[in-house]
């Protein structure tokens, strides 16, 4: 078997695969996604199209003219001035300068502002500072300008927050207490999300991004859904993008429901439905990248999940394509050969409305 096609592993390592090995990883990847989520696998034709994208000898690939989609962002301008742990290049720019550079030098479809912690809880005590920065910047931006952060329920557990630590209670067998702690924490989180969203809405917020919802499990996801619904009641014209944090919602609580739908274990095609029901305008899908598997395997899975989510949704669906999600290698500086292949495949085969 000849090794002739360059591709990547999930951690970014460059590897040489034969055509047969790539086709086999595509086949196994889509079959695994289909079995897990109960969705159709990619057809033979789609698998061959994905093979062509991955095996393209060009360093960079792209969609065809007319196929372009919206590239929204989750704090991308922070990459200008942030550190390497967030993929930042450490340029000494203010937040406004970074946002305008992203809009005008990079041609981004949307821009955003976010607190450097990128969680909503730390924003609460400095909301007036954030509102001032948002308002001032919104006066000079032309493209849609979001405020974004992660719900991050984990910050509400002791010692960082007021609630008993569910992750400590569960190993002790105190399941009911752990569930109660998560419900209490979710209440705090929803109130904070509504508080921050409302205050920013007062200064002309153009769009709110609840990024990486559900990172602490189903109660985290529930808190975000409840916040979306309450914000839409309070500020009906506020556009909201709600993105997920993984390919299924982790059942840390296990029993919480939204609109009669149990949240634990929901895959993307069902995540987008509850996000839509809550009232969000754009849904974000995140598929985990496995570092020990190849890009063909990871991307095949991601495209399979993405396609099912797009078909199930009535609202735009954007694929989260940051480091370590939707087939992007899990490293601080993902190689652009892999990034552009992920980008093209999610649009052409996954039918994403945006990234």
């Amino acid at each position, binding site marked *: 078997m000849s090794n002739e096609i360059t591709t990547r592993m999930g951690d970014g390592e460059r590897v040489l695969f034969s055509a047969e090995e790539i086709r086999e990883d595509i086949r196994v990847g889509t079959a695994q996604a289909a079995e897990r989520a109960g969705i159709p696998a990619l057809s033979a034709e789609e698998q061959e199209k994905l093979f062509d994208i991955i095996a393209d000898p060009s360093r960079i690939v792209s969609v065809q003219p007319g196929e372009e989609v*919206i*590239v929204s962002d989750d704090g991308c301008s922070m990459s200008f001035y942030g550190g390497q742990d967030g*993929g930042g290049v450490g340029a000494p720019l203010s937040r406004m300068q970074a946002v305008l550079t992203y809009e005008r030098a990079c*041609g981004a479809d949307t821009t955003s502002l976010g607190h450097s912690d990128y969680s909503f809880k730390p924003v609460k005590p400095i909301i007036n500072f954030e509102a001032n920065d948002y308002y001032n910047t919104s006066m000079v931006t032309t*493209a849609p300008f979001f405020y974004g952060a992660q719900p991050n329920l984990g910050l509400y557990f002791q010692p960082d927050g007021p609630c008993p630590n569910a992750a400590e209670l569960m190993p002790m067998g105190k399941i009911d207490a752990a569930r109660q702690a998560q419900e209490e924490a979710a209440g705090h989180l929803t109130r904070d999300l509504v508080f921050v969203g409302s205050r920013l809405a007062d200064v*002309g917020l153009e769009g709110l991004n609840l990024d990486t919802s559900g990172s602490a499990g189903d109660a985290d996801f529930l808190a975000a859904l409840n916040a979306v619904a309450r914000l839409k009641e309070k500020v009906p014209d506020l556009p909201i993008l709600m993105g997920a944090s993984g390919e299924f919602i982790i059942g840390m609580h296990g029993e919480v429901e939204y609109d009669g739908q149990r949240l634990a274990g929901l895959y993307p095609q069902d995540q987008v439905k509850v996000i839509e029901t809550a009232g969000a305008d754009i849904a974000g899908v995140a598929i985990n990248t496995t570092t020990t598997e190849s890009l063909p395997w990871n991307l095949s899975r991601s495209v399979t999940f993405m396609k099912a989510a797009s078909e199930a949704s009535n*609202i735009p669906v954007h694929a989260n394509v940051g480091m370590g999600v939707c087939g992007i290698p899990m490293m601080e500086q993902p190689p*652009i050969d892999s990034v552009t292949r992920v980008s093209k495949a999610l649009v052409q085969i996954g039918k994403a409305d945006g990234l």
Partner: protein
Amino acid sequence: MGMEIAHIMASCMGGIRTSGDLVAWMQMTRRMRIHEAKAYVAEKLGVGIIDLTDEEIMRDIRKDLGIGTVTSIAGSPKGIRAKIKVAELLDINIRSVALFKSQMGF
């Protein structure tokens, strides 16, 4: 940073270089899927879908409509001035524009 730029080069509409901001507004304010949003914007601009990401076409359109060009033309609209025009063009509510207009006594 290179990752964001790679996505923009591979599959992005191009923001204010072309019409990406306009199509994004339609997804945000009307929940339009990508094809519907593109068709809506193309109809408002009187161009074809393929023209929406053509810099050579969109540059003149943006300049003529006063909705902001990516290169800086002294005295031409950008920021909130351009967004006022965008809201009128697309018949949508942009919240920063609504606040600004209320402050200006429009």
